[in-house]
């Protein structure tokens, strides 16, 4: 392997560094209209009237639409984890009758200029009669909309005899844990630009991301068009993190407007809109019970949790609670298990996925539980984990339930070994001795550890087309999407190795439904695994074709030939072909072979024209990477502020195509985890008014809050599900940050189990420390401890 496994620079970087990127807001057309949405200012209410006439009176306003104008457009459907009974909770593209959260689109204004569109939107008079709001997802269920309960469904995963386990338990541990509402919040807001080409009868949507092919099919269905006449086109994408690229009302509105108003329509979200209209996530409360034996082994876990879905059920349907329930067991052997996730509608921004959805939450729950078991029994917390880890010899390890349409089979892993490596990397015992001394000297400093299993490589398929042009340039066309993660480079590296070219001579086309008919996009840490293997398969076929042609033209036996640096040449005998260099003996470049395979070339013979091939990869199971996070945190007892002094992520990725990019994924996820652990939360007042509508209220970490990160990437457990052994890297950085930081804070303030809620804001931590001090004051006065 020349390229796979090397930290080569990205092929994406140059245009992005020179200001030549093409993000959504950079796409514009002549005679373009600008869409501005009028959004509900009420969390729940009946829309009595919408008066658009003052807006329409402004010169340059082309149209104002309300719910009545789009009544015939179906609501946005589910993409994943469709469950019976959720259909009535789907979101229409403009509110129909009732508004269910602050920020819900109730009218759309189309004008010649974006400033004018905002002026006009301000003039639209919306009268809404306020209705009672539901804001607490874990309270008693009520009515969300007429005839529809606020509890839309219960997701359940279970196996084993729960009752027997609890009946025979040495001890039962109960915890009540919560994670606040958070979201991906990319620095580029959403954007959508639609253009209808009447001459070709083609509708184009720019600003596409994540899942262009699925969105193409949905838009076509919703607007009554043939899918092949709808083209979604992905440009540069300013961060995804789960929320971007799902089909939202705004995407459909610009398409409909382009068709009806016969002018291109651009919508660029502003930041306030983003924080109240794009998917939120997390937002769970878990009431978990565990039955344990005297050695700290987990006999059973029974978890009931409440998922705050917000005002509608969007494209992810029950995905987040489903993943939380399926992934909560993590790396541990659990005798009997039940997780029941209550999907609750509230009058807040609707929810979807955010990087490591359901796992950031359930890892927090599980690892809090492991720490609680250790504290209850007085067993070391590492030892407690060791006793419960699934063993290497038990792999593949089946959990008797499914998620994302696949059975949960942990494909490979040596969990105990990674734990050892992580502990060794931080010198765990020495580290704790040092921290103990510092605590004795009055500092509030401590360490925490969390173990997790991720999932990646979701199928069911991916397709790649590779062709070599007559200059020797290799083009890979894939149905994957780029969200900034470096997929072009990774695909180019895999293609380059298989085909025998320089990765910089590989051009990767993605996110374009007009170039390839099928694609699954980029989500769930799937692209490197699925697209990577499809690329390898296609490249193998191109390689075979090239060698076959060259063998004939060069009059050499095919098995004596190799492709090295884009040239078919003789393998030096007795040596690894990869070591050879072009230029010795007969040779033929891929450019010449591509020319020989031109349709009119006399050299082509009976072969199909073109040096090209298509590769399909199918997979019914996910690949499960895993990792360990270790945090060292220092608490300021006065302010409740937390500084993360040190952090290690040990992660087994199966096989790292580009270690630099794997580290980049882990580091980026870690920073988001720091936000999730300490800073970020969408808050609402008691009328459902959102309180976090700017970057001054929704606090994301800056360079000051994110400490240097140590990363240990291992390749001990390649996935048996694909020949390169690949597993995904997108979500392992964020997964366990909340859990590890919580444990470190517990340790720092000397109160086991103190942290039960994320984010650990200074106010919350200060209150916990005060309560702790009050309690010790009472104890010192001789009053019996509780």
């Amino acid at each position, binding site marked *: 392997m020349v390229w796979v496994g090397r930290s080569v620079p990205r092929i994406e970087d140059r245009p992005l560094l020179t200001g030549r990127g093409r993000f959504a807001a950079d796409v514009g057309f002549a005679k373009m209209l600008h869409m501005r949405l009028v959004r509900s200012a009420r969390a729940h209410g009946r829309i009595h009237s919408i008066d658009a006439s003052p807006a329409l009176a402004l010169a340059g306003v082309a149209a104002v639409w309300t719910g009545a104008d789009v009544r015939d457009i179906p609501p946005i459907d589910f993409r994943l984890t469709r469950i019976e009974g959720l259909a009535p909770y789907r979101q229409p593209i403009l509110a129909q009758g009732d508004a269910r959260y602050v920020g819900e689109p109730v009218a759309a204004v189309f004008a010649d200029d974006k400033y004018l569109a905002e002026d006009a939107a301000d003039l639209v008079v919306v009268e809404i009669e306020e209705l009672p709001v539901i804001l607490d997802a874990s309270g008693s269920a009520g009515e969300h909309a007429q005839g529809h309960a606020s509890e839309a469904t219960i997701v359940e995963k279970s196996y084993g005899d729960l009752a027997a386990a609890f009946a025979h338990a040495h001890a039962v541990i109960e915890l009540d844990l919560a994670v606040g509402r958070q979201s991906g919040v990319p620095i580029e807001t959403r954007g959508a630009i639609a253009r209808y080409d009447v001459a070709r009868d083609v509708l184009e949507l720019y600003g596409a991301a994540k899942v262009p092919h699925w969105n193409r099919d949905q838009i076509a269905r919703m607007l009554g068009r043939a899918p092949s006449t709808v083209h979604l086109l992905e440009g540069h994408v300013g961060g995804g993190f789960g929320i971007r690229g799902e089909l939202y009302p705004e995407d459909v509105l610009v398409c409909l407007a382009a068709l009806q108003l016969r002018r291109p329509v651009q919508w660029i979200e502003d930041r306030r809109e983003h924080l109240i209209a794009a998917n939120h996530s997390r937002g769970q409360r878990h009431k978990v019970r565990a039955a344990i034996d005297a050695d700290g082994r987990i006999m059973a876990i029974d978890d009931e949790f409440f998922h705050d879905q917000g005002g509608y059920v969007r494209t992810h349907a029950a995905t987040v609670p489903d993943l939380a329930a399926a992934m909560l067991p993590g790396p541990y052997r659990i005798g009997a298990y039940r997780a029941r996730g209550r999907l609750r509608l509230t009058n807040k921004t609707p929810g979807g996925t955010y990087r490591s959805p359901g796992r950031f939450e359930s890892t927090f729950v599980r690892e809090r539980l492991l720490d609680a078991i250790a504290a209850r029994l007085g067993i070391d917390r590492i030892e407690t984990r060791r006793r419960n880890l699934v063993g290497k010899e038990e792999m593949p390890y089946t959990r008797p339930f499914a998620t994302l349409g696949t059975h949960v089979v942990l494909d490979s892993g040596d969990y105990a070994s990674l734990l050892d490596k992580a502990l060794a990397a931080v010198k765990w015992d020495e580290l704790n001795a040092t921290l103990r001394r510092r605590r004795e000297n009055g500092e509030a400093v401590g360490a925490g550890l969390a173990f997790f299993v991720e999932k990646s490589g979701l199928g069911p398929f991916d397709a790649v087309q590779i062709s070599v042009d007559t200059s020797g340039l290799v083009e890979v066309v894939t149905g994957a999407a780029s969200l900034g993660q470096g997929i072009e480079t990774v695909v180019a590296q895999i293609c380059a190795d298989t085909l025998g070219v320089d990765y910089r001579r590989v051009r990767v086309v993605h996110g374009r439904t007009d170039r390839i008919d099928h694609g699954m996009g980029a989500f769930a840490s799937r692209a490197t695994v699925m697209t990577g293997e499809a690329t390898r398969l296609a490249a193998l076929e191109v390689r075979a074709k090239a060698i076959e042609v060259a063998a004939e033209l060069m009059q050499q036996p095919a098995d004596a030939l190799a492709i090295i640096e884009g040239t078919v040449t003789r393998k030096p005998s007795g040596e690894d072909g990869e070591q050879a260099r072009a230029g010795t003996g007969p040779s033929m470049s891929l450019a010449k072979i591509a020319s020989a395979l031109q349709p009119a070339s006399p050299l082509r013979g009976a072969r199909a024209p073109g040096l090209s091939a298509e590769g399909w990869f199918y997979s019914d199971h996910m690949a499960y990477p895993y990792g360990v996070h270790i945090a060292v945190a220092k608490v300021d007892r006065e302010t409740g502020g937390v500084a993360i002094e040190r952090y290690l992520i040990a992660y087994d990725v199966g096989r790292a195509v580009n270690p630099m990019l794997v580290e980049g994924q882990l580091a980026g996820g870690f920073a988001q985890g720091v936000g999730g652990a300490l800073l970020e939360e969408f808050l609402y007042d008691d009328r459902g008014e959102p309180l976090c509508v700017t*970057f001054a209220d929704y606090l994301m970490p800056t360079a000051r809050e994110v400490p240097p990160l140590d990363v240990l990437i291992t390749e001990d457990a390649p996935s048996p599900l694909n020949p390169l052994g690949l597993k995904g890297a997108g979500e392992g950085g964020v997964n366990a940050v909340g859990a590890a930081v919580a444990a470190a804070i517990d340790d720092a303030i000397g109160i086991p189990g103190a942290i039960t809620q994320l984010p650990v804001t200074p106010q919350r931590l200060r209150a916990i420390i005060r309560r702790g001090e009050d309690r010790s004051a009472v104890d010192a006065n001789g009053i019996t401890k509780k």
Partner: protein
Amino acid sequence: MTEKVDITLNINGHDYAVRVEPRRTLVDVIRDDCGQTGTHIGCEHGVCGACTIILDGEAVRSCLMFAVQADGKRIRTVEGLADGDKLHPLQISFMNHHALQCGFCTPGFLMLAVNALETNPDISDDEILDVLASNLCRCTGYQNIIKAVRSTAHEMRRARSS
């Protein structure tokens, strides 16, 4: 709407004569009226710094200024960093340190850091951290950005002293 005003912005050495409403922000005019879309809009309230440009030698948030306030001033944006095909040392350093992923915040970070390095050639590592903490990045976790800028600062110092 108010009457439009004639102004001239000098961006990367080129004069752009434009007629704009006084309420138009500088970043909108740089992007929409002058066609320089390398400068990005992330929040429009001066927190994220994606729109950072250098205006008369100072790093500023171009979303917090009106274009009329920049009339006649010298503006530098990311498009002006490279010299033809030759990248600025900081651009190369960003590439080598994997200091960008989606690349949306990158122009703002580049202009912020270039200005810091130019105005304070002896900038310390901690001062660099302080400067970089004024912009937001959601992809990289910052460490590689910090490394890229520190490495360029060290290189520039070495080049000066030799």
